[in-house]
Every structure is written in C-alpha cells, then in structure tokens.
C-alpha cells in the first residue's frame, strides 16, 4: 500500500529514513511517500484536508488538528527530550560548560541583564504557535520558572531550517532546537551554550510521534500494523546502533550536505531519548494540553486518551 507520510527534518523522524533505507517498509508491503514539512503545525494543515495518511512530527500540533475535527490517533512515540534551548553572544556569556541547570532567579536575572545591555528582549527562535518547541519554551518559562514569556523574551515562530540559519547567522540570541541542529551549531559555534537541557525543559518531554489519520478507515487496516511494527523496529535500531542507521539518515537529512560524523554524533546524542510506547508520553501531553488551554491556544481540554491508540503498539510490540 502507498502511504503518504508527512514529516519534519529532525532526528525524531529518523525511523522513517531507516525504514526507507533498509527497505523494511517495502518488505511488509508499505510503500512510503515522504512529504517534508518545515514544522508540525505546517504538517497538520495538510493533515486536516487528507493530503497525508500518517504524520511523524511533534505531538502537540495534533491537539489543534483534533480540535478542528480531524480524526487522528498517535500510535507510537518516536523520541523524547529532543529539544534544548541554546544561546549565543551576550545571552550565553558566563554559562557553564558542561551545562548546569539554571535556577529560576538566575534565568530571570540573565534575561533581564541581556535586555538591559542590548536594549531589547532576547530574541529566541522557535517553531510556529502550537508546535512542540514553541509550547515547551513557553511552558518552561512560565510553569518552570514563573516568567511571563511575552515579558522576558521575543519568541519568533519560524521554520526549522530558518531557525537553524537564524541562530547560526546571529539573527537571534537563542533558539529551541532539536538534533541534528544542536550538533551542527555546536560544531559551527563553539561559543554556543545551553540555556536549558531537554530534561530542564520538562522531564520526559514528549516530542516526535507517529500518528495515523482516519485510523479506522477500512484501507488503513491493510498497512497499519505492518507500518507501526516496522517503525518501532527502526526506532530500536536507532536507539541501539546509531552507526548502522547513520547512512540512511544522512541521505534524508540535510540533502547530503551534512558529513556522516555529524549525523552519527547527533544520533548518539538522541539515542537515549527514543521511546516507542505511546503510553509513556500521555501524561506529559496532558500537562502541555492544559498549559495550552490556559494560555488560550486551545479552546478546551479534551481527554488526552482519545488522542492515543495504545492497542496497536501493544499488538506489534516485539
């Protein structure tokens, strides 16, 4: 069966590239058609009109899709604790290496010092409203540190590639990024410092997931389980043997512009975050949904469990 899968160019989507590179998908009768999007929110626009059958990107945009009546279910998680907040220039000076968790007061002080010195609030690149990076950044500032995001920072929601460029070019002072961008900027800009690690942002922060659109439509039955099974298998390979998976990922990410060493390094850095069981991120998603409702991004909180299909994973689990 031909399956149109929307994805975003981050390490969290790597299981797809492995599936494609190893031909595992093809072996179980799934013919992958990958469609790249520049953020999760961009992907749900195609999702809502049925232009894609499956979705591999941040979980939170699916809340928006669901609120607009889309029938979409998360069938597997891909990666967790993907995102980090990094800083450069004045926002980074004095931050320790290796990184240590900032206390709320230290963070407040740092942001305030920057504002005083630069004459404007620090500009931090994220993805558009409703994306995982944007919501997590705000959640971290507000729920984690008691700061009003609008007061202490200037958050710009842009595409994934654009965010990386903006950070490298110094067009922003900070960014909330995923791999492989984090590895890339560390190599390009050794003066980059971590403002908040994935764990700091939210322990077990949910990230990329595999979701299926109109999961119960009859044609899905032909490929759903095989797809999820191959996806989980690919995820495990990534978690256990980054070296072997690297060539497939290298081809799909960065269009061949990234050296293999960078990819391997990025994969190794993410290896610990690969989690396939969708059940393990439900609670965190619930928290973030509540936060989105609180900040007015979502009209009302619907039961999180309805977004998840835990049964399929249980069936295909190795």
């Amino acid at each position, binding site marked *: 069966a031909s399956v149109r899968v929307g994805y975003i160019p981050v390490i969290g989507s790597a299981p797809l590239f492995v599936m494609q590179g190893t031909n595992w998908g093809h072996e179980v009768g799934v013919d992958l058609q990958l469609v790249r999007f520049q953020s999760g*929110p961009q992907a749900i626009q195609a999702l809502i009109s049925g232009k894609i059958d499956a979705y591999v990107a941040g979980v939170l945009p699916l809340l928006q899709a669901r609120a607009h009546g889309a029938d979409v279910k998360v069938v597997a998680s891909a990666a967790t604790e993907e995102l980090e907040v990094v800083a450069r220039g004045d926002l980074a000076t004095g931050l320790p290496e290796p990184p240590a968790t900032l206390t709320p007061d230290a963070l407040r002080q740092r942001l305030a010092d920057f504002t005083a010195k630069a004459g404007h609030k620090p500009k931090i690149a994220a993805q558009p*409203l409703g994306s995982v990076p944007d919501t997590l950044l705000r959640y971290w500032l507000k729920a984690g540190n008691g700061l009003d995001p609008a007061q202490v920072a200037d958050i710009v929601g*842009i595409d994934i590639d654009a965010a990386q460029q*903006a950070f490298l070019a110094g067009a922003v002072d900070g960014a909330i990024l995923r791999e492989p961008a984090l590895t890339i900027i560390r190599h390009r800009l050794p003066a980059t410092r971590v403002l908040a690690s994935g764990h700091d942002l939210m322990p077990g922060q949910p990230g990329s997931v595999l979701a299926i659109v109109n999961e119960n439509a009859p044609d899905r039955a032909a490929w759903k389980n095989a797809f999820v099974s191959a996806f989980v298998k690919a995820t495990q390979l990534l978690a256990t043997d980054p070296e072997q998976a690297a060539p497939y990922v290298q081809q799909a990410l960065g269009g061949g512009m990234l050296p293999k060493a960078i990819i391997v390094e990025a994969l190794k850095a993410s290896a610990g975050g690969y989690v396939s069981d969708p059940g393990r991120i439900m609670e965190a998603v619930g928290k973030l949904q509540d936060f989105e409702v609180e900040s007015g991004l979502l009209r009302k909180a619907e039961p999180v469990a309805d977004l998840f299909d835990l049964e399929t994973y249980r069936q295909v689990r190795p």
Partner: protein
Amino acid sequence: MSQARARLLRPALGLAGLVVLFGVWEGAVRGGWIQSGFLPAPSSLGPAWLDEVRSGAWVQAIRDSLTHYLTGLVAGSVTGALVGLLCGALPVLDGLLSGIVRVLRPIPGLAWVPFAILWFGLDTAGATFIIAISVFWINFYAAYGAVRAIDPDLYEVAAAFGHGGFWARLRTVVLPAASPGVLDGLRTGIGQAWMSVVAAELFGVPGIGARMMQASSLLATDLVVVYMLTMALLYAVTDMLFMLVRRRLLGWQG
C-alpha cells in the same frame, strides 16, 4: 440620463458579482459541499475580525507591516526608477551594467531571504531589504522599457527645437514620455511589495504575514482569510491613492 445610468451600471454589476460569489461560497460551506476546514464560511469572518481588532493584534500587525512596506517600497522604487531611466537614456551606462543586470536581475527577490537574514537579521531591516530588492527590479525594468519605447520621432522634435543635449532630452522627452511607463512600474511595485511583505514576515518579522502564518498554524482559516482581506484592503487603499496621483500627472492621456 443614459450617461448617469451608465455611470451607475458598473458598480451595480460589480456588487452583483460579489454578492453571487459570497452567496455561493456561504452556501457551499453551509450545505457541506466544501469539506469543513477547507474554507471558512464568509459569515464567520466578521466575528473573527472583531475579536482580532479588540485584542489590538489587528492594528498592531498593520502598523508593523506598513513600516517595512513603505520603507522598502520607497527605497526600491526610487533607486529602481532612477537607475532604469539612466540606463535607458545613457547607452554607455546601459552597456556597462548590462552584464551585471543580466546576472542579478533574474534572481527572484525572495531568493535573497537567506542573505537578508544573514546581513540584516530577522527584523524590519531584513524585511525592508527583501521588499526593496523585488520592487527595485520592477521599477528598473518599467523605467528602462518606457525609455526604450519612446517614439524616436519625439527625440527628433526635441532636437529640432534645441533640446538635443542629454539633460535637455531627459527633461523635454524622456521624463514626460516615460512617465506613464514609470508610473505603471510604480503601481506594479506597490502590489508586488505586498507579496514581499508576506514573504519577509513568514520568516518571523512581525506583521500581517507573520500573524497570518500563526493563524494558519493553528488552523484558524477564518483569521487567515481576515488577514488576506486586510492585505487586499491595504493594497486597494495604496493603489487608489496612487491612481489619484497618477490621474493628476497624466491628464494629457485623456
């Protein structure tokens, strides 16, 4: 009598066309012929707009966009028209720049986005640069083409009456004869610049485009349409103001 009727007929027809469009659209959405989420009903636009106005976001977005719109437009138009006129009128300059123009001109304004971010950052300056670049070439070519299209007879007339020198020709023939073309270029630029505003703002520079992208990432199609129409309105206003000026300047065209 029939004069007055004819003058009323066009707006009446125009209104009828609009009523049909919106009627069919509303009907299609309500009747469920258009899949929900594909298109907001026209009737939902009003409330969405009111919300946006009340929150202050609408006015703020307009103000932001107008800032780089106007700066970019003026910078790009003035330089573009000037260089275009000079190249049209000075064969040597035209020759010297012809190679460079051939290389630079075909680069679409948007392709400068990476360098706009690199050189000017994600703020008004970057947006202004992108807008100015795309407006520049439109005005350059309009002015250049207008000069090149001038009836050579007119130069003969000017020369026959003592205006054979470069500046005299510029004043008596080139500028007035090229003015319809130059103004058409300005007008195209006025429209094109809105396109570049959206493009620049998609990269995070605050304004209407950024707000529209926010709305679309939240699947708020009604807000997207509100901002599309806002842009249409602003364009229409700038265009109308321009046409008033144009009519005064080109009365001789009748």
